[in-house]
């Protein structure tokens, strides 16, 4: 009998406080995955029909820049969620996601989850709030990175 990922999802901070029935619904779209170091979880421009809940390891979000190679924009680790393009049309990955170290993650089927959100708008609203908070945090971090606070030294 296959094991459900429900207890695992319940223990993740991202899903903290989610209604038990909703966790069960989400678990129906989840699968355990492993990525060896150096492999890609996703590639920029490819269809984004999944997102990942990282259980272990580190994922680098990268952009390939001509003449500069791959630039690491941010890294994600245990407890982080990688990807919200599954939620936003046209559902294409905006970055490369590379496993810096071996990554164990829960892969969520975005098509499956979007279908359940359409059927159960309360689940959809709850998930949307969580992803909006995550996007807001990432935006704030990106703003702070753009300020280059350590680079703009002035003084005597």
């Amino acid at each position, binding site marked *: 009998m296959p094991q459900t990922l429900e207890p695992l999802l319940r223990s993740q*901070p991202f899903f903290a406080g989610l209604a038990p029935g909703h966790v069960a619904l989400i678990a129906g779209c989840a699968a355990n995955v492993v990525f060896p170091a150096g492999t890609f979880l996703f590639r920029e421009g490819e269809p984004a029909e999944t997102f990942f809940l990282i259980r272990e390891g*580190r994922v*680098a979000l*990268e952009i390939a820049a001509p003449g500069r*190679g*791959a*630039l*690491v*924009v*941010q*890294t994600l*680790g*245990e*407890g982080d969620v990688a990807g919200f393009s599954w939620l936003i049309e046209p559902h294409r990955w905006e970055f490369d996601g590379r496993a*810096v*170290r071996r990554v164990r993650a829960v892969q969520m089927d975005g098509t499956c989850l979007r279908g359940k959100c359409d059927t159960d708008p309360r689940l959809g609203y709850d998930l949307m709030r969580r992803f909006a908070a995550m996007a807001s*945090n990432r935006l*704030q*971090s990106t703003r*702070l*990175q753009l*300020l*280059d*606070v*350590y*680079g703009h*030294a*002035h*003084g*005597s």
Partner: protein
Amino acid sequence: MRTAADTVRPAPPSWIQPRQWRVAAADRESADVVTLALTPPEPFRFQPGQFNMLSVPGIGEVPISISGDPAVTGRVLHTIRDVGPVTRALCALGPGQHAGVRGPYGTSWPLAAAEGGDLVIVAGGIGLPPLRPALYQAIGRRDRFGRIVLLYGARTPADLLFARELRSWRSRFGLDVQVTVDSAGRGWHGSVGVVPGLIPRARFDPAAATAFVVGPEVMMRFTVRGLLAAGVPDDRVYLSMERNMQCAAALCGHCQLGPFLVCRDGPVFCYRPLARWLGIREV
């Protein structure tokens, strides 16, 4: 655990004539950061978090935090970033040359008040050197603290300071050392992102933790938000402020921040009384 709501206001600093201290060693930490080991002409003691005024004749004088171990009195370390004419001249000094020194000045990190709980130290860029004396002292009294967490952010991997010590603090003294950089290439296998982003991942008991924070002011504002969101009480968060310090003796008023003079009442402040003044723009 004692409450740390207020630091004791020190006696008003007095003007001291600079003395010439000999440069015993000059170690390059990164492309634009040098640590000067200076030999004082007489025994010198300081508290973690305090600073000296360093000068080069004919060029000027700047406040520089003391970055070495308070238990070591023979050589006093100052880690200096080249950001202007005075710091450039200081960074160019070599063994056998001299720098003018007066101090120590300012308030110190309230380590005694932090004992009995977890200690969370958050440093950004050149903010690590003013915190290093506190780390040395906390490591020397390791059994008096719970977890000691160091969260350190830098611009790039090449800008990380004290890399060897970071490893040793982690491996030999059981500190939870987490490092992140704002940008990196693929050769870097560590974290990329801003230092406040490390706070939710750090393991400490927020209700019993004391936090010391140093870095650019914008970084400190975001870090304080993160610490408060994690549950650290606002009277247990301490910052080291850098303003336009010129006399260091509460005479000139250049470093005024609301009701405070940073040279007299700081540089180490408790966040609670400072909070409403943090957004004030420097003139």
